[in-house]
C-alpha cells in the first residue's frame, strides 16, 4: 500500500529590526552575554513592554507578500511556562487574534505549480539562551536574545512531499529576504522550522495521526527528517500499528527522530490576553503605507524576466530564487544589456564556480560589474569565447576587472588578416593530407584547420576571421 504524506510547517523568522520588540535594546548578534539587556527584557519587577512599531511594519509586509488578510484588531497574549531562558515566566506572543490570517504561497515542484495555504502569521518575542557547562552541572543564562522579534508563519497542512516542504521554505525565505525583514539563516537560527507530519493511504482524504518534529536546522535536514518520519510512520501502519500523537526531536547526527514528549505531557501554556499591551489596531492607512513600500517580489520578478527578457520559466525561477542572485543579475544588466547572455553566464559559469567553492552569491569573487565587463569584451570581439572562459577564471582568482586581465596577459583577440594569413598558410603547408581530403569533399575537416590556427595563436585569433581566410585559401 502506498501513502501520501500530509505536512504543515511552522516557521519562526527573526526580524531584523535594530531594536527588540518591547524595549530599545539592540538586537545585534554576537555581543558578550547579557550586555544587550535592560530591566524590560530582563523581566525585572514592575517594568512594562512597549511595542516596537517596526515589528508591526515588517509583519504587515510579510502578510501582504503572502496574500494574508491583515486584521484591523489583533491582541498580544501571554504564553506561560517556566524556563530559565524566559525571564518573565511567560512569552509575549499572539494567540486567539493574530495580526494576519488566511493567505497562501505558490511554489513550483517538478515544474508543477502548487498553492500552499497560510493559516496565520503572528508576532512574538524570542527567549534567551542557556549555555550548559560541559564539565560541571551548571548552566549559564544569556539574555541578549530575549525580546528579539520573531514572526511565526503557520502553513495549512497542504504540503504533500518533503521536496515541496523544502521548496516552500526556500520560497518563504526568499520573500523574507526580498522584503529585507529577516536574514532567513537556518544555520544561525534566524529562520527556524517545526514540521507537523502524518501519512494517509493514497486516495484517502482522512488525515492520519500527526507527529510534530522539532530541531530542523537546515533545509537539508527538513527534507531528511520528513523522509525519515514518512518511512517510520509507514512501517508502523503496515505492521498494523497506530501512529502516536507526539512531539519528536530530529537528531541530525543519527539521521533519526526520537520521541520528546507525548500528547499527555503537552504543555498547558494558559494563554490569556496580555493586559500590559492594548489591542493592536491597524487601520487601512497603515496597511497602505506598507503596501507602497513593498519591493518587487520573486513571483513578480520571475514574470517580468519572462515577459521583458524572454527568459524561460525555469531560468527566470533560478535567477529570482534569491534576492541576492536576482540583484546580481540586474546589476549585470545595468552595464551589459543582453539578458539571455547574462543569464547563461550566471547560471552556468558563475553558479558553477560558487558551487565548487561553496560560497554564497553575496560573497562572489566576481562582481557583477566585472562579469558584465567580460561580456562586453566578448560582445565587441575583443576576446574570443574561449579566452573569455580563461579570463573568467582569472577574475575569480584575482577579483580584478576583465579588461585589466586581458591587457596584462595579452589576450586581445587577433582579427587582423595580415597577422592571421601567414599562420593559415603555415597550417595549410604543414597538413597536405588533410588539405587533399578536404578538397576531395571532407568539408568537416574545416574544424581541424581552425583548431590548428587557434592552437598556433594560443586561442587569440578571431575564429570568424580564421574561418573566412581558411575557406578562401582552401578553395
Amino acid at each position, binding site marked *: 500500500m502506498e501513502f501520501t504524506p500530509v505536512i504543515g510547517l511552522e516557521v519562526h523568522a527573526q526580524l531584523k529590526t535594530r531594536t527588540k520588540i518591547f524595549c530599545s535594546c539592540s538586537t545585534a548578534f554576537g555581543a558578550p552575554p547579557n550586555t544587550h539587556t535592560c*530591566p524590560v527584557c*530582563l*523581566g*525585572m*519587577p*514592575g*517594568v*512594562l*513592554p*512597549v*511595542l516596537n512599531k517596526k515589528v508591526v511594519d515588517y509583519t504587515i509586509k510579510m502578510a501582504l507578500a503572502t496574500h494574508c488578510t491583515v486584521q484591523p484588531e489583533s491582541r498580544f497574549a*501571554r504564553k*506561560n511556562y*517556566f524556563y*530559565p531562558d524566559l*525571564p*518573565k*515566566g*511567560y512569552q509575549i506572543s499572539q494567540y486567539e487574534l493574530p495580526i494576519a490570517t488566511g493567505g497562501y504561497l505558490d511554489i513550483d515542484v517538478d515544474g508543477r505549480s502548487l498553492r500552499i495555504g497560510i493559516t496565520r502569521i503572528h508576532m512574538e518575542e524570542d527567549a534567551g539562551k542557556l549555555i550548559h557547562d560541559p564539565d560541571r*552541572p551548571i548552566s549559564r*543564562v544569556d539574555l541578549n536574545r530575549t525580546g528579539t522579534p520573531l514572526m511565526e508563519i503557520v502553513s495549512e497542512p497542504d504540503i504533500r512531499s518533503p521536496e515541496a516542504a523544502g521548496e516552500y521554505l526556500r520560497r518563504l525565505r526568499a520573500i523574507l529576504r526580498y522584503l529585507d525583514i529577516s536574514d532567513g539563516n537556518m544555520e544561525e537560527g534566524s529562520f527556524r522550522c517545526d514540521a507537523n507530519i502524518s501519512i494517509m493511504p493514497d486516495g484517502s482524504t482522512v488525515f492520519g495521526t500527526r507527529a510534530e518534529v522539532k530541531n530542523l536546522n537546515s533545509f537539508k535536514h527538513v527534507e531528511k527528517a520528513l523522509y525519515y518520519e514518512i518511512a517510520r510512520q509507514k512501517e508502523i501502519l503496515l505492521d498494523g500499528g497506530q501512529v502516536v500523537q507526539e512531539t519528536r526531536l530530529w537528531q541530525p547526527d543519527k539521521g533519526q527522530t526520537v520521541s520528546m514528549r507525548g500528547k499527555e505531557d503537552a504543555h*498547558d501554556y*494558559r*494563554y*490569556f490576553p496580555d*493586559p*500590559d*499591551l*492594548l489591542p493592536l489596531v491597524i487601520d487601512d492607512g497603515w496597511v497602505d503605507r506598507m503596501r507602497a513600500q513593498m519591493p518587487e517580489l520573486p513571483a513578480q520578478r520571475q514574470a517580468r524576466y519572462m515577459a521583458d527578457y524572454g527568459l524561460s520559466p525555469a531560468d527566470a525561477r533560478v535567477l529570482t530564487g534569491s534576492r541576492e542572485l536576482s540583484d546580481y543579475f540586474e546589476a549585470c544588466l545595468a552595464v551589459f544589456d543582453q539578458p539571455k547572455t547574462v543569464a547563461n553566464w550566471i547560471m552556468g559559469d558563475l553558479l558553477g564556480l560558487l558551487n565548487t567553492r561553496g560560497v554564497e552569491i553575496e560573497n562572489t569573487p566576481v562582481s557583477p560589474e566585472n562579469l558584465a565587463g567580460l561580456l562586453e569584451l566578448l560582445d565587441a570581439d575583443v576576446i574570443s569565447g574561449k579566452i573569455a572562459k580563461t579570463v573568467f577564471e582569472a577574475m575569480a582568482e584575482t577579483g580584478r576587472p576583465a579588461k585589466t586581465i586581458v591587457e596584462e596577459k595579452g589576450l586581445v583577440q587577433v582579427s587582423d588578416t595580415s597577422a592571421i594569413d601567414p599562420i593559415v598558410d603555415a597550417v595549410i603547408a604543414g597538413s597536405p593530407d588533410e588539405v587533399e581530403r578536404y578538397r576531395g569533399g571532407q568539408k568537416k575537416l574545416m574544424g581541424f584547420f581552425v583548431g590548428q590556427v587557434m592552437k598556433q595563436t594560443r586561442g587569440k585569433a578571431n575564429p570568424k576571421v580564421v574561418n573566412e581566410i581558411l575557406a578562401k585559401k582552401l578553395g
Partner: protein
Amino acid sequence: MKLHELTIAQASGLLKNKEITSVELTRAILDRIEAVDGRVGAYLTVDADGAMAQAKAADQRLADGDAAPLTGIPLGIKDLICTQGLRTTCASKILENFIPPYDATVISRLKNAGAVIVGKLNMDEFAMGSTTEHSGFQVTRNPWNLDRIPGGSSGGSAAAVAADMCLGALGSDTGGSIRQPASHCGVVGIKPTYGRVSRFGLVAFASSLDQIGPLGKTVADCAIMLDAIAGHDPRDSTSVPEPVPTFSAIAENGLSDVVVGIPREYSSAHGLDPQVGAAVERAVKTIESLGARCIEVSLPHTDYAVAAYYVIAPSEASSNLARYDGVKYGFRDRTQTDLLQMYRSTRTQGFGPEVQRRIILGTYALSAGYYDAYYGKASQIRTLIKNDFQTAFASCDAIISPVAPTPAYPIGETLDDPLTMYLSDIFTLSANLAGIPGISVPCGFSDDGLPIGLQIMGRHFNESMLFQIARQFERAATLTDKKPLL
C-alpha cells in the same frame, strides 16, 4: 502646631514663605517615625539619610524660587513602587533584598517635583489582601486602635498618613487597596481612572486593575499629589494620553449642579454593618444639603463582581508573579540542584500563603478546559459591570457608597477565612473592574471610635468631580481635626 501634623497644603505654604525648612520638616517626620512606628509598624524601610539629602536639595530649590507644590514635602511610598537604589520588597520574602536599578515613573515625577521620599511602607504581600496582615515581614496596626487592622493592601500607607509619619503617601489599588485602608484609618485616598497614572515601576499584581494613587490627610492634599503623578507615560502602553486638569484647583462653588446616584443594590449588600450604613446615609443628607440632587441608580450585576474579580485578578497575578523564580534576582533556595525542585522550593518558601493561594486559583482558572468557564466568563461579567456604570452615569455625575462593609476589624479575624476578606471588597472592586475613579473620604466614626469612609465614584477621567464633592463634604463634615491618640 507640630510640624508632623501639617497637611501638604499647609507645609507647602510655610516652606514657600521660608517659615520652615524641608530639613526641619523631614527631621520632624523622622522623629515621629522613631516615636510611634514601633507601635504601628507602617514602614518596612526608612531612608533617613536619603530623605535628609533630598530635604537639603529641596531647601536649595525653595531658596532659588524654583519650587513646586510638593518641593520639600516628606512622603511615604508603598513598597511595591520601585525606587532606584532603595530596597523594594513588595512585603515579600522573595524580594527581601531587591534593590531596583530604576525609578517608577511616579517616583521620577515626585523627585522632579522636589518631594522627599522618606521610606517604603508595609502592605499585604504583592498587594494581595485587605488587612496588611499578609505581609511577609510585619503586621501594621491601625493608629486608631492598635488591635485592629489598618485595612489593606496599602495599610502601611494609610496608617503612616493617619499617624503623621509622612505628609502624604502613594498606594496602589487593585480592588480597593487605597480606598479601604484610607477608610479604616480615617484618611483620604483616591484610585484614579485606569490609565491616568503610569504603572511603569509598579510591581504588578493584576495589570488590568492596578492603579497607583495618593493617600493624604485631606482631599486637597490628594489632589496636589495626583497633579504631580498623573499623565501619559510612553513607557506604559495602558496609560492614556488624555489631557490632565489641575486637580488641586478644586471647584468650591457648591454642588447645586451635581446629581449623585445611590445604587439600589448596595443597601442590601452582604455583611453591611448598620453603623456604616447609618454613617453613609448621614453623608448623603449632608451632600444633599450642599445642593446636590440624590437619585437612586441601579448596578444590576453587582452580585457577580466579587466572583469575577477573584477570577481575573488571580489569573493575571499567576502570570505576573511567574518571574519570581529564583533565577535572576530575589530569593533562591540554593540547596536545590534540580531545576524543577529549585523552582518549587524557592516559590514555596518565598511566597506567603495568601499569595500562593491566589497563584493556584489563577493558574487553575487559566488552565486548558477551564479558561472559558472561568477567565472567559469573568471577562464577560466585567463588560456587563462596565455597562452598568455607563448606564448609571447617564443619569448622574457620581455614585456614592460605603467603602467597606464594616469598620476595621480585629487583627487575626479573617486570617483563616479568606472568603470573608474577599467579600469585604464588594463596594470597591467594581470601580477597578470598570476602570473608573473612586475616592474614599472620612464620613464618621463607629461607636467605638473607628473611622468610617464614604466612597464617591465617577466617570472615566473625571477625578475633578470626585475632588469637588469630596472637598465640600469634607468641609461640611468637619472630621479632619480629629486625630488618633498614639
